[in-house]
């Protein structure tokens, strides 16, 4: 069974029902689903559209507009690297090259093992402690160096065992 079919329909339905009467409820619903599943499965679109009285095209249109929402399962750990100017001034471009090599990934890719994913991000609001990266949803790291990144990866791999 693939992960795509694995998700919890009931939990998704609950999120939809919770926001059925929320003004502008689609983003809260998408967030709610991604919070639980890590992504918004294509197969959930119909239920979302029905629940919020929208067309499926509308729901698809919104999901694709926003960089944050993803339609495939994320890696166990997603590395978000800041590509914006303040981080560039502190050699973020070199760091990006190192990270890509270290993980063997390009942006928007997930490793075959499913352990790591790599995404660009445009400013984490940590511009005085540049360069900055974020692991998963809330683990922000500043003053990042190649060495620090390598130990971070080692730590995450260790936890995975």
């Amino acid at each position, binding site marked *: 069974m693939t992960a795509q079919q694995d998700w919890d329909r009931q939990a998704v339905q609950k999120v939809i029902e919770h926001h059925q009467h929320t003004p502008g409820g689609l983003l809260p619903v998408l967030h709610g689903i991604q919070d639980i599943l890590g992504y918004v499965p294509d197969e959930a679109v119909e239920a979302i559209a029905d629940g919020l009285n929208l067309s499926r095209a509308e729901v698809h249109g919104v999901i694709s507009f926003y960089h944050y929402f993803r339609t495939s399962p994320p890696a166990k750990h997603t590395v978000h690297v800041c590509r*914006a100017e303040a981080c560039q001034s502190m050699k973020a471009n070199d760091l990006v090259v190192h990270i890509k090599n270290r993980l063997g990934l390009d942006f928007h890719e997930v490793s075959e093992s499913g352990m790591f994913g790599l995404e660009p991000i445009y400013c984490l609001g940590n511009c005085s402690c540049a360069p900055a990266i974020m692991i998963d949803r809330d683990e922000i790291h500043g003053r990042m160096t190649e060495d620090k990144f390598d130990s971070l990866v080692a730590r995450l791999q260790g936890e995975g065992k």
Partner: protein
Amino acid sequence: MTIKIYVPQDSASLSVGANEVAVEIEQEAHRRNEKITIVRNGSRGLLWLEPLVEVETPDGRVAYGPVEPSDVAGLFDAGFVSGGKHVLGHGLTENIPFLAKQERLTFARVGITSPLSIEDYIDHEGYRGLERAISLGSEGIVAEIGASGLRGRGGAAGRTGKKWQEVRASVSDVKYVVCNADEGDSGTYSDRMIMEGDPFVLIEGMTIAGIGVGAAQGYIYLRSEYPHAFDVLNAAIKIAYEKGYLGNNIRGSGFSFDLEVRRAAGAYICGEQTSLLESLEGKRGLVRYRPPQPAVSGFMGKPTLVNNVISLATVPIILDKGSAYYKDYGMGRSRGTLPIQLTGNVKQGGLIERAFGVTLREIIFEYGLGTKSGRSVRAVQVGGPLGAYIPESQFDVPLDYEKFSDISAVLGHGGIVVFDDTVDMAQQARYAMEFCAIESCGKCTPCRIGSQRGVEVIDKIIANNSRPRQIHLLRDLCTTMIDGSLCAMGGMTPFPVLSALNHFPEDFGAAAGDAKVANL
């Protein structure tokens, strides 16, 4: 006696290990039988010193930083719990020149109080603005904001009082106050520092705005890149409800105000107010044609006040101390203070709140002490990804909306990014176009297609592929984007591009003369 030790919980501090330091201090104190309490405060904004640990002493708070977990035992050995000397010591925090030379009005409490203690907030002059606002009533509130000279701190610098009056004058049974917390500009984090470090000041400001314009519902549209701010805001809102500072009949005033945080989803354009409103309505963030202005038809077609976090967080002090007090700071038509964020390749980066009028040079060299790399400063970008690159020859310009406009630059949200002499300005120009291509909402061709063309053209310039012709093309393209874009995304992306080309033509393989010739 229990000693109070402050270890910030601001996400910048966390990003460099503040949690690990707090744990280590706790454990080391336990081992040594020292009685301490750790307060998790906001950041004082001296970000190069984070994690900055402060110890309360009879003379005031003594600062140590940047502290690593491995420094903690040594700090105890040096008697830091009573303010003892240590190589990481900086004496009284208040006397650190970077902080001592500031004018903290909006940021008066940030780093000083415990962010989620409403008692602490009230003890430090919190909710005095609301009290006065309630006694003034709607008309008086809007008049006070107008008289303060406050202009929007989100970037466009519109007159706040005028906008409030427009929403107030719009007749409708339902109105909204929307706080723009999308803070997408690189080189900025002042909104985040307020939300994480003093959330009640934003809640108070929004409540006053609600009473002022006649709105009973507020939303904070918060970027998804700020998970910590999300948690702090929600916790603060819950407390405000429990204590009667939100909800029905606030503190017996007869006014009601509800507040909810909504998460954005990683689209820079959703910081533009009409795109934001579309997003808040659950749609794609396409920029709206104006008129109608949001003040007339905003969220769900109702009159809506959209203001930046800093604008709203400045409202309480204006109401508390009076418009004259606030207006007294500043220069020209830029009144009050600007929370400046000094970032990038700079030795001492952080939050500097100063009255308008301070020069770029003073900020970069007297506060920042030059680059972190130790090389010379080549350029700074002010005002985010749509802001101009400024060369050293223009560093004497004072921070003032009009003076910046005179040199084809913007102050924006007050972010300054410092670059040393290793920067390649053609690459920076290319990135500006690339960013626009990635983040364009796609509604108008000059922005959507123009930015992609811009990347291609700059690539040809870099590759020296019929360079003079391509430079000419790039200028034409910029003109088309400026003239033909619906919003500032396409309309201002040419600012960083042209400033890079005009001030640093050598990076484009053109002598200063060439660039001008191509311009004819």
